[in-house]
């Protein structure tokens, strides 16, 4: 059996993590953790419930150059936030396809990232938008670009004792388009077989996040200018996307074979790019 602890301050969380190094589990929405606790693979010594830690915040606030999404913000609130829908449509869309509404009413955006599944739906848009992860630890706070956050399969750059405080997403420049696309085995609730997000900025580099095609979600960019030119040659654009897709290293698992994943990655990248382009042109 485990102890259940309910700190209210960030410093307490840091102290508890230091006191129970390696044997503590953090509980936010619990939609992944409770399934793991029930799997029979054993319990942690302590379960630290973060939901009463005031400094973590469960809301989305607008800053001058970015929005701040508190670590306790649930995916349903990301999905329906008018701020996110207006400025970060690919993130709103990705948040809205995670699990069922019952899951999205509990699961947090920070938890989706910290769980570090290669198929995490919110990772590709956060990579494309260039989000920054704010971390707290007893040794100090720091900020990490999300492209440096995922180290390997279900492994993150969080140091022992560190936790995510918020996710900050910079506003794209005016005139940008962005999109999130995924392929699943069925409509309704399913994990992504492959997913991709695009941020298209006219005459700047074009940024993509890719999901479920390697050990971590992956950020790639096209800086040739081919994709960011609204009047560019479509054939050259498809070739540029095929080159970007070649950076992925998909594997075969129960959702798909690796050949299908590699082929469908090009499809979702192209769909995300084309939708972004239509938004730019409108």
């Amino acid at each position, binding site marked *: 059996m485990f*102890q259940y602890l*309910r700190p209210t301050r960030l410093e307490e969380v840091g102290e508890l993590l230091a006191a129970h190094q390696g044997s503590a589990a953090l509980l936010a929405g619990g939609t992944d953790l*409770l399934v793991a606790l029930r799997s029979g693979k054993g319990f942690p010594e302590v379960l630290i*419930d973060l939901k009463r830690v005031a400094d973590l915040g469960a809301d989305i606030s607008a800053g001058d150059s970015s929005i701040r999404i508190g670590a306790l913000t649930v995916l349903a609130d990301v999905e329906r936030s008018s701020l996110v829908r207006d400025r970060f449509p690919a993130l709103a869309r990705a948040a809205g396809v995670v699990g069922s*509404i019952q*899951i999205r009413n509990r699961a947090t955006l920070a938890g989706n990232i910290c769980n570090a599944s290669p198929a995490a739906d919110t990772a590709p848009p956060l990579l494309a938008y260039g989000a920054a992860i704010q971390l707290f630890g007893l040794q100090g706070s720091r900020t990490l670009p999300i492209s440096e956050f995922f180290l390997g399969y279900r492994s993150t750059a969080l140091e022992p004792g560190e936790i995510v405080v918020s996710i900050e997403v910079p506003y794209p420049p005016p005139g940008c388009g962005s999109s999130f696309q995924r392929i699943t085995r069925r409509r309704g609730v399913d994990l992504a077989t492959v997913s991709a997000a695009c941020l298209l900025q006219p005459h700047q580099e074009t940024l993509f996040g890719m999901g479920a095609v390697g050990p971590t979600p992956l950020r790639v960019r096209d800086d040739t200018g081919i994709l960011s030119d609204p009047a560019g040659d479509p054939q050259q654009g498809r070739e540029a996307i095929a080159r970007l897709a070649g950076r992925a290293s998909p594997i075969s698992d129960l959702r798909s074979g690796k050949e299908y994943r590699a082929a469908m990655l090009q499809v979702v990248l192209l769909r995300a790019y084309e939708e972004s382009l239509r938004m730019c042109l409108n």
Partner: protein
Amino acid sequence: MNGSSAYPIRTTINGKHYSLEVPPHQTLLRVLRDRLMLTGSKPCCEEGECGACTVLFNGRAVNSCLILAVEVDGGEILTIEGLSHHGELDPLQQAFIDEGAVQCGYCTPGMIMAAKYLLMDNPHPSLSQIQQGLAGNLCRCTGYGRIIRAVQRAASTLAES
């Protein structure tokens, strides 16, 4: 709260106040069913896939199998048992009967609670919004057609009243 094996919680369930001591690993679903004999919420997959255990927690549809009972301390729960008032069924319950949306009945409480949340949030849902709102609830009998019609019927009943 610390080291002991039972944790005191206070919670309001269907308008009634409870003070309970719960072990840290016990889910809300287990407390509802095994301690409080509120057996309308059903155990099935117990990993958040099927929706049979859906209840409202602080006004939001959740899977009670994925919430520890200690987490609801200070919160408010609505289960299927709390929907009818003085023997009068909720319009959703009545619509499920009128449309024949119940076959074996196992998924029904969760289905109705998910639909309850959908209509609280969006009183005039489109077909696709109903499908999305019930995507986390599995039914192996009905093929969903009658369930969707029941939700549409309840929405019109509520709009008229």
